[in-house]
């Protein structure tokens, strides 16, 4: 077997260890009835073998540092190194979450200021930094909405969700005890205001909108939509996944949103880390402030403190104060960019997406023509010889790109969702466009090369069905 494909357990050699713990370290043992009968079968490697193992693994993985990562809805922008330096400052990294307030003033001040920045960017003044991810932010937002309705005597029954929404939206509703009603989008890919009028009544607690939506289109009728919902006593939840398109241009609080979550790992450059950790602060209107989860950071005179005395709070969703290390990174980024920088981020993100769309729309089907925001959605409808979106995606790997988001949103069959982000240069986008066009030609002339892609990755196309049928989730399971 080639060494770089060995698991860490296959590299184990009994008796080895990769740490030095001090020969004079004290030692004690547990009572016999509690003591472990045999040591857990963890690996046994020297430090050099361990380093090589994980370095080999890294070489079988693609990140933004290796190339363009145009995943729609995910905002895979560059992860600044100064953020990483900031989060690792010992005064932040070594700070225990239960440190008394007077000994953690710098951390609390950073949190308080970040709350203010996010309030300004969103146009919604009441902010909690606690949620650990966008989906948890959604959950908190819905809990705020439910708590507000309950305080008025009736929680209401359901939430309206457009058919272009992220899957986490309905899942979050379920946890909050709300039924979900899907609202179809209109022919132009935007909210159908007439359908919304028909659906809106006193049973509806809220609508969850993503703006710009997942087709990359700005919901131009958002203010009217909000008025329809507000007129019947409902609230407007804004999924902030696509905030990168509108910073400094328009604010959810100004277009009628009552509460939103903000994905720091999308818009504010905290790294995705291979699938987390993220951070999903929630911003809301002042009338929802009493319901924010405890604790919130408050400022009394010149001193900062965590406020736990919040009788109306919806509870807490995090073991401590939120994903603080991510807050440091987002704060660092905002302070580097400043107000003009953030606005330029959104402008260039939109420019890049429109540029990619213009250069591809003659080959790849564009279901919703017209200007897009920070991402565009194409489809495989015009790709010849039965070559699918998945084939195109896999083939892009051979050209040195991470594929775009595929088969989402669900309203477009065979969707290819491209979000270059502002950190890609025009020549990188030109390369991407050239690759997409080359793949289209291959689909015409040599479809098999596309259908069997990728050809030069660590593995060929993986058998996902077998992983389900012959489930092997640990090295100890038979398969």
């Amino acid at each position: 077997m080639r060494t770089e494909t060995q698991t860490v357990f296959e590299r184990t050699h009994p008796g080895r260890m990769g740490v030095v713990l001090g020969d004079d370290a004290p030692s004690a043992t547990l009572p016999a009835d509690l003591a472990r009968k045999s040591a857990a079968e963890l690996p046994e490697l020297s430090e050099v073998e361990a380093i090589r193992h994980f370095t080999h693994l890294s070489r079988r993985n693609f990140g933004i540092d290796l190339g363009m990562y145009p995943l729609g809805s995910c905002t895979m922008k560059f992860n600044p190194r100064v953020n990483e330096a900031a989060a690792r400052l010992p005064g932040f990294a070594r700070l225990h979450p239960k440190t008394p307030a007077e000994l953690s003033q710098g951390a609390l001040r950073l949190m308080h200021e970040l709350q203010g920045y996010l309030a300004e960017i969103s146009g919604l003044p009441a902010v909690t930094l606690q949620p650990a991810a966008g989906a948890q932010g959604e959950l908190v937002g819905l809990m705020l909405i439910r708590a507000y309705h309950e305080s008025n005597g009736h929680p209401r029954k359901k939430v309206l969700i457009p058919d272009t929404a992220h899957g986490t939206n309905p899942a979050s509703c379920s946890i909050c005890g709300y039924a979900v009603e899907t609202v179809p989008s209109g022919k132009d890919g935007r909210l159908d205001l007439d359908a919304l009028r028909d659906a809106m009544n006193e049973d509806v607690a809220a609508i969850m909108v993503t703006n710009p939506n997942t087709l990359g289109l700005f919901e131009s009728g958002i203010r009217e939509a909000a008025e329809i919902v507000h007129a019947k006593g409902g609230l407007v939840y804004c999924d902030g996944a696509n905030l990168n398109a509108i910073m400094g241009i328009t604010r959810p609080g100004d277009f009628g949103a009552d509460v939103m979550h903000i994905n720091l790992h999308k818009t504010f450059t905290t790294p995705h880390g291979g699938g987390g950790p993220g951070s999903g602060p929630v911003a809301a209107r002042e009338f929802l402030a009493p319901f924010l989860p405890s604790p919130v950071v408050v400022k009394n005179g010149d001193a900062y403190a965590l406020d736990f005395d919040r009788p109306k709070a919806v509870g807490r969703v995090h073991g401590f104060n939120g994903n603080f290390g991510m807050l440091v990174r987002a704060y660092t980024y905002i302070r580097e960019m400043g107000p003009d920088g953030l606005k330029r981020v959104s402008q260039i993100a939109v420019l890049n997406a429109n540029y990619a769309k213009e250069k591809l729309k003659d080959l790849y089907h564009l279901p919703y023509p017209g200007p897009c925001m920070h991402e565009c959605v194409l489809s495989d409808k015009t790709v010849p010889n039965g070559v699918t979106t998945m084939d195109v995606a896999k083939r892009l790997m051979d050209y040195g790109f991470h594929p775009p988001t595929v088969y989402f949103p669900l309203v477009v069959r065979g969707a290819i969702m491209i979000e270059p982000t502002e950190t890609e240069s025009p020549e990188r986008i030109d390369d991407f466009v050239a690759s997409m066009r080359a793949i289209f030609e291959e689909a015409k002339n040599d479809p098999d090369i596309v259908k069997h892609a990728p050809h030069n990755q660590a593995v060929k196309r993986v058998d996902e069905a077998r992983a389900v049928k012959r489930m092997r989730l640990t090295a100890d399971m038979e398969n």
Partner: protein
Amino acid sequence: MRYIPHTGDDVRRMLAAVGASSLDDLHESVPDAIRLKGALHLPEALGEARLLDHLERLADSNDGARMVSFLGGGAYRHHIPPAVDQLLLRGEFFTAYTPYQAELSQGNLQAIFEFQTMIARLLGMEVANASMYDGASASAEAVLMAMRATRRETVVLSSGINPAHRGVIDTITQYLGDGKTTLPLGTDGRTDYTALDASIGEAAAVVVQSPNFAGVFEDLPAARKLADRLGAKLVVTFTEPLAYAIAEPPGAFGADIVAGEGQSFGVPASFGGPYLGLFAAKKDDVRQMPGRLCGETVDGDGKRAFVLTLSTREQHIRREKATSNICTNQALCALACTIYLTLHGKNGLPILARQNLATANAAREALENAGAKRKYAAAHFNEFVVTLPMPAEVFLTACRAKGIIGGLPLGGTRGFGENDLLVCATELNTDEDAKRLAAVLSEATHAY
């Protein structure tokens, strides 16, 4: 702007290509009425040197990060070998997305597979997921899973569960049933199962934390017995998994679901996050599990490959019927944990655990000799509760004057008094630290 490559010429060329006359034109679909007039009110941009200087000042004003500390209570101060962070900083790892596209994500996927294996082995369980937000959310998801699997709402919870974790459990389950019963701690610090209301004949889950919030190991065979009587899932939670390097793991006592905090394994304290929720269960219940799972399979050439699997449980497929609304895991923290566990390994982790136990014993004995009373007789791991001859806050103020954070005061926490203090000692605490802590107590007792 270093993160935006576009020069003025680039912008002009691209605007021409898309047929727009200005950057403002690109946002024409945003109605004028809702456009921001003027700039955002944010601080002006800083250059890197001034930015880092500002951040260093903020960081340096956290005096607590530099002090000798005895804080635990859900987050633990442990040494992290530099190799862990240096590997995490490889861009292929930390600048990657969730490995949905398996062919160019084999590195992250294999690391998750190895993580799942190590966690399952450490906890004595059959399967583990790819991680959850933190220990608190993992515990809440464990309760949700038990409710789903049994289709019941009643949950019996030990009051030895970390209060913040209990808070998150209560928050997440508040709209899904209100049958919660809390069992008190007995005089030895372990859950008193005999206190259960006799009218309760069945339940979704019996939830107990071990080592518990007071630091002591719970009687898991008794918890298993109660769960059997109620036809309930036994959920065992934890905040200090290092204990299981030397303590018999929950799986060995028949736990159905084990969930808790993995921060101790290579993740910095970082004022509370990002941390690492660990979640393990039995193979037969895998389809009820929340979160991501990585499985082994083969590629088109029959070579070993890894892939995210069983995703039909998840919200991007099932939407409102998903097992959980959680879509991210804590992949980078899980990777830190995997590297940490690899470096310590089968031999190092027990040595480290015994070192923690010895340090905590020494700190407890020093405090007892200085007049503190051990509150609970049951065996503890690296933290314990003492009752002081004065309010804990008075003692802590005296500690602070000597540059020490003496522990976590428990006044206001249910079941504890204002003289109770939770003290945690790890491998980072020396004998000298324990002596200094005890000396402060002697002095404070004289002064009080």
